[in-house]
């Protein structure tokens, strides 16, 4: 019996090549996308779970609010004290570790023999690190690998890079010319699904601050290992009580608190700033899961549609089989078998496509995903489940529908397939196009917004600015280097700052303000700069004067107490202090103990992501520590200018590899996630349009076949080609327009939500919907048009005779 089912199913598949091909290709693409997305989701959901202690590791985050702040600041960075103090004072805490991102924004120069590399992923951690987290050691012992303050554990690829096939254990790596670290362990490369990613792991003890426990100045990431079975909420209560007790009295004005986050929730659920690893977003995970299912359903819909559309052709066969004694269940199984064969072909093709797509998809989503992400048993059972599910999803309705035909009616030729299930078929086509139009509209809006961001005047001139990493270098050498660069023909300005000007992070507070109470305190962002910063970056001064030589000399005096700082504030900061720009000039303020006067007020400029509104910022001269050298080039013959800059760098710093990028790149990098959203939308748009058009094409083929006689008669009666094309296309175009009407408000709502995340955003305009509608109507017309034109041009006599 089953052989008979398979045989007829196979023959049917071959007989109807066009529809079979459309069904299989459509389904295969749906399955391919489904596989790619689920693999990505698995990767996101298994984040950090490889740690054996994952269930009892928590991350500590730090929140504070000064009395004059509008809102609290939440950061993943913590001071040095909490971990050791909590470990000692709170019984439920078994262990803890502080981690510092040693190469945060400033790569480290690492030297071994004649090999010199610039490392950007080096962390340092307390020696308990490898006891708390589970990294696989190839050489060395996790229990004591970090005991020695000058030890370093490296990954297998790093070991290969420096030592080739030699045994790395005991070898000395020289970090930033100062620290000689001895390799004490080699681990397997850190998986991409770990929030703690590193190539080198040193001991926290090499940080000078490790010796003093402080409750301010947050620079480290803190993780605690709770005793087994301790609920996080319980420990949280004890820590809250402890912190409250510790910071009561003694004139505390700031409100501070610590929050415990379970390790496995950090990646997808945390919304604190300054994360060690760019965090995912659980909302995106849900959205992608929904999209994966929708794509799969969309592809099943094609299949379902084509089978029911072809039901008229099958009706006679069904009648005959019933008369021969076939029971409904037997026919049901027969049609399900046919669906199963199509599904099987599609899954094979889909898996193959996914296999081909994984490398590109990995680059696309910035994570390494492949079939290796799956456990083999999962992959196999997943495929089987997918097979059963898709077969049932695509096969059940048509099979039920077909097997229910009454034999007498079908043999009399009374079942018109076109009438039967017509409403359903139309709704399904509308559904497909609702999804397509939704993606088209969303993509147009997203692309628009990204362009808007790129072209927005941020109040600062980012063009042609090279950023060189100079973290940790003595300032007088930097100044000499600067003076040399400024002589070069292609260079129009050089300045230095602590932070990159498109992403200023430093949290400070303004106090000791003239005319204000002594306990006034306002949290602000602030950035130490070299005096020509404002001019080089093209920031507009509204009132007052730029920093000059005298300001420079002030901050170069060795006696900190005597320095008089010249501060530059933005408009927003001045407003927050309750002044007009002209009133602000000359006012005395303090910035975390630095006393000075407001020298200038500048026009607001965006110094962080455009997701955020502009907040108060203070620009002040401070030469003790620079992170970035900003070189403004004139844009002519840039390649040559870069070469000259590199050459001078080598004469100044022969031991340090040069690291540079353009400010514009860094700016765009900040919107990588948004860019990715845009790219993903584009990809989905193409896929959904393609799948929907496949379905539409199949239906058009079918319906013109059904209407051959009608078309013949109409032609004989004098209808022109144009009438006929209009007749056939109109049916489908109506459906597409209904889809546009349903889809527009949905897309409008979704994209309004997405845009909410940007402080600077485009408004959604009517032309977006009009052009999406125009686009999909044209695409649908091209899909259907070919069929209808062919039908319209066919010879009517032929089609009538064939009846």
């Amino acid at each position, binding site marked *: 019996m089953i052989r008979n089912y398979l045989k007829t199913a196979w023959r049917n598949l071959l007989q109807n090549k066009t529809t079979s091909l459309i069904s299989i290709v459509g389904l295969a693409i749906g399955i391919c996308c489904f596989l790619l997305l689920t693999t990505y989701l698995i990767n996101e959901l298994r984040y950090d779970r490889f740690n054996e202690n994952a269930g009892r590791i928590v991350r500590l985050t730090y929140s504070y609010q000064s009395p004059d702040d509008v809102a609290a600041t939440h950061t993943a960075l913590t001071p040095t004290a909490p971990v050791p103090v909590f470990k000692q004072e709170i019984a439920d805490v078994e262990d803890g570790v502080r981690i510092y991102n040693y190469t945060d924004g400033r790569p480290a120069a690492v030297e071994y023999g004649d090999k010199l590399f610039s490392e950007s992923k080096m962390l340092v951690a307390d020696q308990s690190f490898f006891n708390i987290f589970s990294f696989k050691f190839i050489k060395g012992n996790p229990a004591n690998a970090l005991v020695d303050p000058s030890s370093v554990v490296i990954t297998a690829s790093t070991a290969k890079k420096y030592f080739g096939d030699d045994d790395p254990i005991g070898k000395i790596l020289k970090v930033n010319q100062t620290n000689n670290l001895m390799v004490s362990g080699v681990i397997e490369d850190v998986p991409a699904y770990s929030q703690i990613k590193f190539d080198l792991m040193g001991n926290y003890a090499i940080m000078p601050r490790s010796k003093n426990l402080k409750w301010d100045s947050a620079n480290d990431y803190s993780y605690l290992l709770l005793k087994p079975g301790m609920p996080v909420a319980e420990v949280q209560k004890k820590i809250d009580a402890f912190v409250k007790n510790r910071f009561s009295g003694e004139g505390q004005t700031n409100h501070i608190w610590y929050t415990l986050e379970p390790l496995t929730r950090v990646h997808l659920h945390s919304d604190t700033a300054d994360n060690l690893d760019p965090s995912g977003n659980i909302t995106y995970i849900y959205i992608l899961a929904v999209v994966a299912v929708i794509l799969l359903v969309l592809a099943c819909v094609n299949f379902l549609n084509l089978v029911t559309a072809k039901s008229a052709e099958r009706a006679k066969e069904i009648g005959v*089989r019933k008369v*021969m*004694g076939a029971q409904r269940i037997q026919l049901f199984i027969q049609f399900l078998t046919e669906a199963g064969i199509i599904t099987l072909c599609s899954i094979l093709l889909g898996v193959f496509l996914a296999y081909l797509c994984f490398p590109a998809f990995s680059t696309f989503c910035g994570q390494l995903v492949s079939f290796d992400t799956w456990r083999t048993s999962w992959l196999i059972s997943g495929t089987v489940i997918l097979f059963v599910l898709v077969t049932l999803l695509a096969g059940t309705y048509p099979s039920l529908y077909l097997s229910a035909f009454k034999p007498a009616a079908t043999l009399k030729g009374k079942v018109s397939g076109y009438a039967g299930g017509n409403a359903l078929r139309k709704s399904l086509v509308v559904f497909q196009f609702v999804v397509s139009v939704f993606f088209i509209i969303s993509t147009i809006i997203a692309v628009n917004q990204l362009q808007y961001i790129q072209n927005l005047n941020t109040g600062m001139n980012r063009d042609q600015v090279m950023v060189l990493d100079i973290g940790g270098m003595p300032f007088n050498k930097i100044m000499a280097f600067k003076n040399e660069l400024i002589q070069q023909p292609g260079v129009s300005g050089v300045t230095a700052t602590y932070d990159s000007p498109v992403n200023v992070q430093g949290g400070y507070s303004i106090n000791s303000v003239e005319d204000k109470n002594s306990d006034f305190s306002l949290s602000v962002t602030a950035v130490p700069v070299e005096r020509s910063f404002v001019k080089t970056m093209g920031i507009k001064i509204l009132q007052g004067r730029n920093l000059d030589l005298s300001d420079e000399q002030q901050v170069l005096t060795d006696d900190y107490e005597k320095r008089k700082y010249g501060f530059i504030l933005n408009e927003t900061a001045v407003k927050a202090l309750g002044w007009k720009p002209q009133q602000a000039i000359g006012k005395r303020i303090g910035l975390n103990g630095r006393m000075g006067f407001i020298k200038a007020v500048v026009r607001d400029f965006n110094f962080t992501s455009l997701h955020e509104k502009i907040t108060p910022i203070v620009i002040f001269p401070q030469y003790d520590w620079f992170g970035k050298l900003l070189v403004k080039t004139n844009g002519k013959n840039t390649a040559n200018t870069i070469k000259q800059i590199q050459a001078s760098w080598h004469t100044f710093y022969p031991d340090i590899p040069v690291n540079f990028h353009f400010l514009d790149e860094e700016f765009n990098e900040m919107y990588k996630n948004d860019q990715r959203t845009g790219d993903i939308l584009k990809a989905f748009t193409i896929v959904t349009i393609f799948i929907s058009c496949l379905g539409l094409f199949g239906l058009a083929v079918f319906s013109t076949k059904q209407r051959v006689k009608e078309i013949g008669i109409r032609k004989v009666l004098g209808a022109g080609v144009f009438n006929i094309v209009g007749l056939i296309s109109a049916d489908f175009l109506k459906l597409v327009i209904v889809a546009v009407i349903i889809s527009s408000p949905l897309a409008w709502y979704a994209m309004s939500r997405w845009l909410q995340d940007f402080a600077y955003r485009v408004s959604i305009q009517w032309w977006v919907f009009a052009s999406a509608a125009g686009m999909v109507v044209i695409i649908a017309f091209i899909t259907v048009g070919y069929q209808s034109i062919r039908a319209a041009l066919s010879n009517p006599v032929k089609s009538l005779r064939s009846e």
Partner: protein
Amino acid sequence: MLSLQHISKYYQAGGNKNYVINDISLDVDEGEFVSIMGPSGSGKSTLLNIIGMLDEPSEGYHYFVNEAVHQLKEKKRAALYKQYIGFVFQAYHLIDELTVYENIETPLIYQDVKGSERKAMVADMLDRFQIVGKKDLFPAQLSGGQQQLVGIARALIAKPKLILADEPTGNLNSKQGEEIMELFSKLNKEDGVTIIQVTHSEKNAEYGSRIINLLDGRIESSRKF
């Protein structure tokens, strides 16, 4: 073998009932060869479909080998015609995707006949109808007469007690028609198969042992030979 009592069939047409079969009572004994005649639209096919349980009467009682068909569930009904009835159609109604061999085999598959047995039975049938050489062809590759032979072979394969044939020769030329009629007559006489056929041709009708004339859904006349 079968008995129809006060059978009517009507279609609802704009409020009033449109009778296609109007109060027909009819008994057919085992071994009879009945020809049904009448003008187009007089209800011949409808009557045959009711006898074959492909269609349900609106009113009346229908007995088949002592079962009350009007009370049977669909499954039981299917079992009945699997066991007793073979259909032959004017338009042959072969399954286009199956070969001659497979078309003939199909009823056996639905009756759960074992593979080896099926082979023997189909081979026997091919032999009997002298179409062994055509067994791997598809219906589209046969002439009308050959297709109808296959149709009859398919109807006979499960050894039915009753053959229902709706204008079996309607699409054939007179020579082919004659051959089919000879075959029916032989089956009726030698194997004792009961046959009910619908036909337009006086000549073909006379192969039967009884001729029933229908007019507007009523039996106008009935002659036995």
